[in-house]
């Protein structure tokens, strides 16, 4: 599978992506994407693909989604001028406030859209995975709203570090299943969700939380999350009469970043920068910087950049932020990197924790640890490019991170964490 692209191919693919011609009929974003699913799921994915195309072009469906986004999610989320961060960084800093969306993160945009789709397709139950718990909470809420029962798979490690979100899922009526297999984080939770779906492909709907997975998930989630960038672009123009010089978003699977970036792809003047989890630093197993250090491979249904060893075994990852702690990334990001439209950098655990404190102190906003990675990338860029206008996707709020943050305050002198696991349990 060839991934090297000539300049002419890169240009053509960007044009196609902007025109809405990607993914192609086979679910491909250039060399990336596709549908690498067990045979049992192929007919279910084909039905779903048809349902996606019909729903997104059905006025009734779209108007119900819009109404729910407004009335129930609280959209549009504000664009906040961050005055004190601006002075500190020597830039004009604007925050797209997904932390103010219902349930506290951008995840609700996707969860709501897919819950409506699941109902339309006649699903009797919804399955979801969750890492940080934000997608699980959003799915639990959206399923309650549309009246469909849901089961959320969550890694045992994540259940511990995101305890507040586990309680919220229970309150919202979800069944939460702790995952003890594999790496006991997001990746193992996705494995388990797939196993559940394979066992009941007709009556269950798998509500995947990021722009990963087999076609049509990366496309569907991009469509549902693009509300972020579409709103932010209009808000920037309304507030400043201009577009930003650069936009920043954190990237794990990459749904909030695709949501912010996709609607800005055509604006060539906007530099787009994604920030991955640099964890404890360089070296396999110490971070989740998939685009920076991974290779093309297949996990969870699509061909994309991936962290794996010489034998093709998926690598353990580390990030202080559960939502970024994932060895893969969405195929559209792999393409955006390959064609040079988005640049991907990383921020370490320590930098992200500092950024949480800085944002709290300067703006009175507690960002999620995931979103704090975007703040790090933006601050570093602002230092090198003084006097620019900066748009940051503040993907979620940090209330869920209390256990980790309290722990960090308790061991401020002890920034070296123990590796979670260097081998397969």
């Amino acid at each position, binding site marked *: 599978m060839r991934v090297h692209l000539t300049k002419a191919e890169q240009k053509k693919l960007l044009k196609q992506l902007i025109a809405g011609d990607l993914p192609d009929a086979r679910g491909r974003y250039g060399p990336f994407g596709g549908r690498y699913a067990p045979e049992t799921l192929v007919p279910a994915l084909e039905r779903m693909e048809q349902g996606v195309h019909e729903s997104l072009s059905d006025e009734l469906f779209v108007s119900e989604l819009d109404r729910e986004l407004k009335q129930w999610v609280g959209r549009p989320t504000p664009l906040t001028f961050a005055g004190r961060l601006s002075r500190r960084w020597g830039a004009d800093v604007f925050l797209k406030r997904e932390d103010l969306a219902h349930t506290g993160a951008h995840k609700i945009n996707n969860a709501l859209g897919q819950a409506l789709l699941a109902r339309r397709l006649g699903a009797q139950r919804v399955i979801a995975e969750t890492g940080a718990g934000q997608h699980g909470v959003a799915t639990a809420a959206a399923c309650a709203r549309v009246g469909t029962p849901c089961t959320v798979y969550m890694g045992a490690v994540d259940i511990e570090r995101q305890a507040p979100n586990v309680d919220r899922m229970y309150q919202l009526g979800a069944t939460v299943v702790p995952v003890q297999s594999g790496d006991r984080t997001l990746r193992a939770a996705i494995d388990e969700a797939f196993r559940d779906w394979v066992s009941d492909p007709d009556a269950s709907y798998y509500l995947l939380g990021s722009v990963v997975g087999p076609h049509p998930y990366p496309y569907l989630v991009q469509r549902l999350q693009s509300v972020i960038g579409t709103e932010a672009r209009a808000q920037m123009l309304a507030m400043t009469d201009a577009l930003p010089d650069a936009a920043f978003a954190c990237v794990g699977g990459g749904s909030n970043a695709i949501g912010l970036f996709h609607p800005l792809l055509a604006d060539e003047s906007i530099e787009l920068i994604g920030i991955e989890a640099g964890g404890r630093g360089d070296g396999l197993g110490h971070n989740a910087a998939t685009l920076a250090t991974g290779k093309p491979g297949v996990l969870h249904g699509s061909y994309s950049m991936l962290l794996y060893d010489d034998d*093709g075994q998926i690598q353990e990852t580390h990030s202080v932020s559960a939502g970024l702690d994932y060895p893969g990334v969405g195929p559209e990001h792999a393409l955006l990197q390959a064609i040079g439209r988005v640049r991907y950098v990383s921020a370490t655990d320590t930098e992200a924790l500092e950024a949480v404190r800085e944002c709290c102190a300067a703006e009175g906003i507690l960002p999620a640890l995931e979103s704090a990675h975007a703040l790090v990338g933006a601050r570093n860029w602002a230092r090198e490019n003084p006097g620019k206008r900066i748009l940051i996707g503040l993907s979620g709020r940090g209330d869920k991170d209390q256990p980790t943050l309290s722990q960090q305050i308790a061991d401020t002198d002890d920034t070296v964490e123990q590796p979670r696991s260097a081998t397969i349990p």
Partner: protein
Amino acid sequence: MLPHVKIASALNAATAAGRVAMVPFMTAGYPERDGFIDTLREVARNGDVVEIGVPFTDPLADGVTIQRSSHAALANGVSLRWILDKLTATARIDTPLVLMSYLNPLIAYGFDALARHATEAGVCGFIVPDLPYEESGEFRRALATENLGMIQLVTPATPEARLKNLCEASQGFIYAVTVAGITGGSQDLPVDLTDYLDRVKSCATIPVCAGFGVRSAEQVAEIGAHADGVIVGSALVEQLEQGKDPSIFLRQLLGK
């Protein structure tokens, strides 16, 4: 004989002898890495074709037994390269061997080198549970250079037209998954199993082997009445991990 024809021919020989063909599955290097070849020979003596599992970190079509055996084999240092090296170094096993692997280890190995080395190791075909036919072109082309078989899975959820295409595309045998689900289930076989197997059989020009959740001699007999062979995975892996003799178990399944 071409490698993929060797698979079909071994299964057809069982049919000609008036019995259901046995396709045992074992995870390579489990429970003991050092016992791999000995266990394989023992299993091969009681099988018409042997399916060797290449361990993978994220076996998302597998139940708890094969997850456990995969993770343990990885912890024991088993890899695709190690498996092929061991098979190449040992005296040829007469029973046709097929490798069951998720796609990423195959990508990491490189398709062309894999086809060559697999042939040298005496492997006749591949089963790749996360590689649907539509995505398999490049891998099939690599296998074709060595005449290795690409064994296609079909399931009760596979629509009629697709079933025909998959049966036509499959080489060696057609792997009929008995249930919508993961490997190693303990529930009874579905009531409409025989209709389904008859449907698959009617599309097939090569042997049909059925598997997923096969644990008893009764099930083997039931499947054997409507398919050419039966695949036994998790139940055999459980016997092996308990240190039991695989020959006794496999013969029991065949009612011997």
